[in-house]
């Protein structure tokens, strides 16, 4: 599909995160929970899905904006500060670094180590979110729910939203298995490998 592309001409001061997942993996919920955690910590936050048609298995995007003041911007996120990849198979079909700011952070759900990725100037953090999710019986082998585990990795790698607020937000907002989801995030936080 040919899209008429617009580029943001002004750098925003707030922190912007883009989540990449597949329909059904919980990327939108992850973005929402991160926003809720940020607000718990005292920030202002906003989260929204890529305004598209939802289909199970199709690539989806969701976004979180975090700032220490009220967010007065409602356009799409073009230049995120961090990117979170829930499904590494997406990296074969789309450029997850598109628009990512210089020196930005990429958090990837993978069994690989950060140095195995050749992503130029970006900081790569990896976590075996799928393995952790299955250990806590979140989803099935065919469709593991990795969104809460990956948030633990986000807290470790990015650090602007602290793990305790992420855990609190998960416990309050996970649609099911609240404690298992929180434990998955905690394990992921501890097992995240930082490539810098």
């Amino acid at each position: 599909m040919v899209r008429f592309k617009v580029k943001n001409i002004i750098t925003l001061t707030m922190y912007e995160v883009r989540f990449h997942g597949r329909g059904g993996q919980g990327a939108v919920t992850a973005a929402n929970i991160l926003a809720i955690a940020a607000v718990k910590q005292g920030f202002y936050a906003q989260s929204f899905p890529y305004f598209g048609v939802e289909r199970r298995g199709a690539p989806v995007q969701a976004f979180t904006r975090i700032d220490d003041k009220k967010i007065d911007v409602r356009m799409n996120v073009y230049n995120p500060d961090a990117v979170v990849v829930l499904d590494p198979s997406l990296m074969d079909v789309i450029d997850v670094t598109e628009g990512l700011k210089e020196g930005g952070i990429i958090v990837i759900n993978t069994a690989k180590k950060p140095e195995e990725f050749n992503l130029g100037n970006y900081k790569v953090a990896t976590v075996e979110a799928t393995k952790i999710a299955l250990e806590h019986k979140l989803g099935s082998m065919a469709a593991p729910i990795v969104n809460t585990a990956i948030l633990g990795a986000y807290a470790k790698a990015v650090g602007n939203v602290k793990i305790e607020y992420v855990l609190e937000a998960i416990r309050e907002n996970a649609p099911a298995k609240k404690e298992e989801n929180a434990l998955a995030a905690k394990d992921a936080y501890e097992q995240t490998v930082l490539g810098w």
Partner: protein
Amino acid sequence: MKAMIRGNESIAYAFKLARVKVIPAYPITPSTLVPEKISEFLANGEMDAEFVPVESEHSAISAAIGASAHGVRVGTATASQGLALMHEVLFIASGMRLPIVMGIGNRALSAPINIWCDHQDMMSQRDTGWMQFYAESNQEGLDLGIMAFKIAEDERILLPAMVGIDAFVLTHTVEPVDIPEQKDVDDFLGEFVPHYVTLDPEKPATLGSFGFPEYFMEFKYGQWIAMERAKKVIDEVFEEFHNKFGRKYSKVTPEFLEDADIVLVTMGSMTSTTREFVKKLRKEGKKVGLLKLTTFRPFPKEELRALLKDVPVVAVVERNISFGFGGAVYAELAATFANESKKPKIIDFIVGLGGRDITFKTLNEVVGIAEKALKEDVDEVNWIDVNKEAVLKAEGLL
């Protein structure tokens, strides 16, 4: 209570807090979450109301009329084609002077099929006799939803009202919203007690019957008077809300207007991004202001005349188009100044149709043309962020 909720949930909370008694609804993207959330409230026993699942939007608004004519508070929600399908019935609701409140997830109309944001759906219902409010944020969606009942039910008014929340940009965006306490909303709204004839099996009456030429115009003149009176009632209700809940609303909200050479007129969620952009321009020393239009019906002519008469250039930035003329807001603003001796140069900008993102680049282009308009004539109607070359080629003009 501060909560992180979506715009659709704001509308659902407004209905819950207003103790709406009947909600007939038919789901449509992007407002489906409104009836979903209400169903959840009902299932959890948090809300005491009758949910009426219907087979179409035409039926939803028809059921709303029946329930409202019985004399209870009624709310519903829809969007786009759903609102268009309601069209003929909307006139009946306003003609019968029924204070129904409807949340609209402002979405484009087909074709081509598009589920994303613009204001074409509500603008196309401009002449149905409903009051129209446009929310900038989820907080405004909730607050306007509550206030709409108080305005609609005021005995000087008795007209239905729509509250627009932009598709996805608000309906699906999670952000912090201050949800008022139930007792405070109870105090503010009071119980809805109609002091007019309602449908009651004990006291049979005919409502919405035939209006012969001898009477018809008087009914319409009554609606005209009510809509004119709504201007003052809206101010009163906004003021009362401000005193009680601390959040200030007005039909038009001026920002950075003093000494402005250019004023951007906006509606709905685009106002946020525009405010951020205007702040940046002000820092650069550019004399640009912002005027947010919250109330489109009744159209706040008097305030607009007072605020804009000395402004050199007014740029109307709008998400709708009336083919063969221009944007609806532009048309009305231009008409508002038609008989004035002091008036701004008014330029129209069509942006963000069908969910095209409204960015700083969009607004930069708008301001660029408005700056040119300070010195010379520019096009009356300007389409921004459009691949004009491709269209002109397809139309055989290039």
